[in-house]
């Protein structure tokens, strides 16, 4: 057999970013963290190391390290699971790039971590800075392993995944209801040529006031952190932590609670009892409801895991983590049971309150129908609800039929039943005062 020469060959340009260059943070003078791909489509992470010294160096330059990342390294670093120092320790080599003050490369070298003086080593806490990445309302899910590696998927599985992930993201918004925020998650057309599912959260202000007090940026950051908690932290949390009666906590849960508590306070959320307990219970409920949406995902056969990313404001795909198909089974015993979720959520008004409704469907025989609630934004949500009217044998010529026929909003006293804080049904007694709004 022929002999292979043992020389070191590094392909010219392997260190250089040729596509997808994105600056994650610029400190006003220099790009300090950036990402991109080289000509071989490898991810490259660039981090500033220092600047030339006027007294020691003849020419002026800015020095960077360029680290080649595997897709898994990329996900680990940007989801906060691995530090830059750990990345360098895991890498056989990386590159040092010197650039002139106007940003053009003037030299490049291949090095190992041991080649660097200790003062240039990233510190033990060199995680990707959270300020470098501002969460947005866009999420992207890619499928990996199995058929997905060949850019194929079974249509019925794809449909199932699409619906489950949409609900999974949507349920994380539940804990924001007291802030006055309700939201919907839309599937968004993927980019041509990509095998990814995209989702967009659209927020609505349920009482038309609260978004004024709650910065959307904080909401998106919170949702992202909650999703990251579910994907990364929940599998490591102790069983029983999410129980509504448990006072146990964890650092990750505390961070989430702190963020949500701040939003509750800013928005003047209508909380009964202890604020911190309410916040924690709402988060626990939201986590459990969200994860429940993934039930059945283990039955899909055409891929091995889902990788969820947030598309940041600067169009950077920030990975949150991966969900393996056995994820649901691995965390199921940590969730609030379905029974507890349902039984503790139903609340009813203690006495009749005035509600604005527009009746859209009504039976004069049974007194039941449907209505749109909160046309004038007086109470909680502009949603379809059920109405039950009692007190007569026929409900003809009542405010409800008038609302139906004249498409008129009526203001009537009734008792609302809420599920998870959301009005589902309002019951009316026709003996009670019923006033048609002029």
């Amino acid at each position, binding site marked *: 057999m022929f002999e292979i020469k043992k020389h070191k060959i590094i392909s010219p340009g392997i260190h250089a970013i040729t596509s997808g260059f994105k600056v994650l943070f610029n400190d006003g003078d220099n790009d*300090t963290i950036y990402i991109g791909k080289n000509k071989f489509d490898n991810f490259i992470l660039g981090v500033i190391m220092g600047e030339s010294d006027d007294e020691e160096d003849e020419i002026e330059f800015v020095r960077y390290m360029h680290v080649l990342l595997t897709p898994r390294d990329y996900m680990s670093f940007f989801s906060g699971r691995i530090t830059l120092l750990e990345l360098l320790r895991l890498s056989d080599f990386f590159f040092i790039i010197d650039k002139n003050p106007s940003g053009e490369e003037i030299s490049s070298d291949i090095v190992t971590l041991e080649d660097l003086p200790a003062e240039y080593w990233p510190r033990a806490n060199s995680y990707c800075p959270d300020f470098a990445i501002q969460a947005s309302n866009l999420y992207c899910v890619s499928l990996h392993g199995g058929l997905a590696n060949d850019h194929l998927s079974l249509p019925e599985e794809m449909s199932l995944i699409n619906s489950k992930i949409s609900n999974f993201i949507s349920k994380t918004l539940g804990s924001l209801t007291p802030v006055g925020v309700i939201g919907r998650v839309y599937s968004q057309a993927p980019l041509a040529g990509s095998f990814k599912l995209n989702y967009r959260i659209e927020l609505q202000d349920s009482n038309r006031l609260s978004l004024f007090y709650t910065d959307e940026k904080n909401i998106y950051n919170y949702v992202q952190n909650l999703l990251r908690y579910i994907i990364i932290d929940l599998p490591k949390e102790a069983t029983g932590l999410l129980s509504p009666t448990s006072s146990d906590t964890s650092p990750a849960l505390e961070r989430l609670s702190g963020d949500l508590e701040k939003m509750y306070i800013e928005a003047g959320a209508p909380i009964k009892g202890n604020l911190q307990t309410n916040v924690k219970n709402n988060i626990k409920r939201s986590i459990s409801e969200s994860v429940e949406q993934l039930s059945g995902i283990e039955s899909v056969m055409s891929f091995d895991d889902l990788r969820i990313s947030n598309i940041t404001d600067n169009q950077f795909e920030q990975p949150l983590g991966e969900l393996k198909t056995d994820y649901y089974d691995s965390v199921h015993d940590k969730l609030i049971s379905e029974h507890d979720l349902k039984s503790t959520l139903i609340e009813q008004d203690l006495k009749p309150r005035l509600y604005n409704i527009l009746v859209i469907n009504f039976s004069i025989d049974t007194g039941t129908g449907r209505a749109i609630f909160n046309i004038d934004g007086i109470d909680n949500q502009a949603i379809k609800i059920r109405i039950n009217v009692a007190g007569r044998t026929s409900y003809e010529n009542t405010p409800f039929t008038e609302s139906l026929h004249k498409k008129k909003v009526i203001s009537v006293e009734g008792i609302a039943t809420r599920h998870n804080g959301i009005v589902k049904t309002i019951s009316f007694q026709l003996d009670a005062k019923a006033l048609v709004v002029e």
Partner: protein
Amino acid sequence: MDDLAYNKTAGQGHKNDVQAEAEADIKMTFTNIREGHEFNCIEECTEDTSSIFARRIDKDKLKLKDFRTYWESGKRPPGTPTKDSICGYKGISISRYQTSSERSAVMANFMQQVALSPAYRKFLAEIQFKPGCGMTKHTPTTNDASHHDFYKCDSFDVNNVTCINVTPL
């Protein structure tokens, strides 16, 4: 008013004649800022000589190079020039804080950067500007609400800056 020259009352409304006379000697010109483009970067700026500003520097002593702008380094904004992009390159980035909680937020931001790049600008200078050396504008970014641009006047010198503290990061 000449858009290249501002006295220290700019942006502060009318002052009485005595004050105006007393301050007339501190007149700043911004020919260097104005040069090479069509935008008025000094518009909406104020002279802030009371706040504390922070900037990362490479040595334990302030020098003129610490106040060099992107533009002076030879960099130019990519794409079609806009007022924001041009003026961003003409100004110097500084973080302002007025309360201890604002200072903590700024420091937390810096320390996250330091963890990745410990040898890059490893000192933090806390400074105040003396009258007549330049103007500042609040230019918050998505990740730094305290961010300001400082526009040096033509006669700017490092001696125009009071260095309150230089701390290793």
